[in-house]
């Protein structure tokens, strides 16, 4: 028994969980083509959730700030990107791949910029007074969420907004009975890139350390000569920009968006962060992929259970590992 755990640990430990789940699902599903379709779709879904969750995980895990307002950024990103895409609809319809890509690039960039600016504003005005106080964080960010949703409503109106998508991301690749949506491949690749970039920044620089230290004892980090306030703003801006990016990608996936989009994704996003374990980007990715896969498998095998599957997954994981799959901080 002990040997087995050790062998498993050497092979990657909890990282193997999604593989194990996929293997079990393969047996249960029995139809290989369906299994491939579901797995690929689930992975991509996981990546999109990861995009939305990574910012929250960063802010929640490293800075110990529970930002319920995160979902406002997700919505904001979605609407900004959708507006830019609508505005550039001409480019999207064009046959030129270049114009297609440019339009997409501009939309994502606009979402990122809005996220950075919004994050700066949010940190300085909303979060600054409530560091270290979870309860007031929950409350003040909920207040901010209400305001932000209302502002979005005021600017974009409440009618659902259709999102045009670049031509080259439409449709699916069909291999035999397997279908793989092109948009999902794109989302998967973008999510992967974001993950690698975050991983390197946090693990190859002192920034990750500083943030963790700052959360524990802000005064002491300052007494060591670091402007923790500026660092926190930076992290927060990054977190918000990731949220808007996630929102933008989600808008492209949903193709029909309404201001409550962010709020509707929030519970899943929180579940992912918690499953993953506080403060670890690796954990968040793992959690997101688990949620993506399990959602699809359960939806196929036991549609009745689809809704509860996330909750059950979370509770099971918390019972097994009370601090999540890969907590960075004990």
């Amino acid at each position, binding site marked *: 028994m002990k040997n087995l755990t050790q062998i498993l640990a050497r092979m990657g430990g909890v990282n193997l969980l999604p593989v194990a789940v996929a293997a079990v699902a393969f047996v249960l599903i029995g139809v290989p083509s369906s299994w491939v379709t579901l797995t690929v779709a689930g992975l991509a879904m996981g990546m999109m959730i990861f995009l939305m969750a990574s910012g929250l995980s960063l802010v929640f895990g490293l800075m110990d700030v529970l930002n319920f307002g995160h979902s406002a950024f997700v919505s904001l990103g979605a609407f900004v990107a959708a507006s830019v895409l609508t505005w550039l609809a001409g480019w999207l319809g064009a046959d030129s791949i270049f114009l297609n890509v440019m339009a997409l690039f501009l939309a994502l960039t606009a979402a990122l910029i809005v996220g950075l600016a919004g994050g700066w504003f949010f940190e300085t005005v909303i979060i600054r007074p409530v560091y270290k106080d979870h*309860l*007031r964080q*929950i*409350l003040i960010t909920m207040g901010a969420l*209400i305001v932000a949703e*209302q502002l979005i409503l005021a600017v974009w109106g409440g009618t659902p907004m259709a999102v045009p998508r670049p031509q080259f991301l439409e449709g699916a690749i069909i291999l035999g009975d397997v279908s793989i949506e092109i948009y999902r491949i794109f989302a998967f690749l973008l999510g992967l890139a974001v993950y690698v970039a975050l991983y390197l920044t946090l693990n190859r620089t002192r920034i990750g350390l500083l943030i963790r230290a700052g959360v524990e004892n802000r005064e002491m980090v300052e007494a060591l000569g670091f402007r923790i306030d500026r660092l926190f703003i930076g992290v927060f801006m990054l977190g918000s920009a990731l949220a808007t990016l996630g929102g933008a990608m989600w808008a492209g996936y949903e193709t029909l968006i309404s201001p409550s989009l962010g709020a509707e994704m929030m*519970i899943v996003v929180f*579940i992912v962060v*918690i499953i993953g374990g506080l403060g670890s980007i690796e954990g968040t990715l793992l959690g997101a992929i688990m949620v993506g896969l399990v959602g699809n498998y359960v939806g196929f095998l036991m549609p009745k259970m689809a809704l509860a599957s996330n*909750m059950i997954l979370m509770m099971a994981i918390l019972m097994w590992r009370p601090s999540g799959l890969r907590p960075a901080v004990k």
Partner: protein
Amino acid sequence: MTEQNSTGALIVKITVLTIGAALLFAPFLFQDVRSLEVAARICVFVVLVASYDLLIGYTGIVSFAHTMFFGFGAYGAAIALKQMGPGWDAVMVGGLAGMLVSLVVAVAIGLLSLRVKAIFFAMITLAVASVVLVLASQLSDFTGGEDGITYRAPQLFKTATKLAVDEDGKVLRLFGVKLNGKLAAYYFVFATSLALFVLMFRLVGSPLGTVLKAIRENEARAEAIGYRVVSYRTFVFCIAALAASLAGTIYAIWLKYTGPDTMLSFSIMIDILLMVVIGGMGTMWGAVIGAVLMVLAQYYLRDLMGAAAEATSNLPILPELLNPDRWLLWLGIIFILLVYFFPRGIAGTIMQKGIAK
């Protein structure tokens, strides 16, 4: 010199007593339909918020499942009244069933998960609450699903019921107020809410209340001086659940309608949170103040803004921002400012102010 005797505390207490008096005489003071609805809602929410404050303010337990217990009580009464017909037996059965379910669920959640970290506990309660919400919507034969259930309240509370009649057999009026079933229903709500509130008030002032605060402050030390933390937590979680469940039963009887949006939804949870914070966590006075302010805002801020927009209609931009449909925006802003400037809530901050140095 203690908190209890500061001038600020005096102000808070006088305010709360005034509110209490206003609620007691509400049917006579404000003789319109809306005011009575508002007053009844305030009564119920005072209980709900106070019971939530037991958890969050006194013991430091963050739970997102409080509306779930509220819902158990409400659905208990609603289903019983629907199935058994209007009557006190149905109220009893429903109320008790609601409490029983609440108690069982609270004990289960408490024993299983009050040991884990606070934030995880919060997420677990959120998960359980959303599963219940889904169940309520899927078991629609029982619960009426999304649309909820309408039913009749006991005979005594029907608007048509005459409590006292004059010579002509018409319903008697006192200071212009009809002595009818509606009035009886209001006083039922008022009296039961008051009783529950007083019970909780005694609870937090008792030695148990101090222990709860100690657990909030420093769990490990409370354990070290001999308090069984998990038992206390589970106990207070159950008490809060029972109080919420009863509040749900009362509200269900008053409303004669029970549905997910009024009794279970996450937005009520947010309302409760807002009320606790606006009033001030860790003081029962605060629960009253918070509930009153929020309910008033929900019902009257709109009108107020309409008036303001009217008044400023020849100024630029302002009327746009004061558009009554954007009242939530202002509520949000006010809320942020409150958390910002009154970190201890209104009651907490005022009480703090008056403390002599």
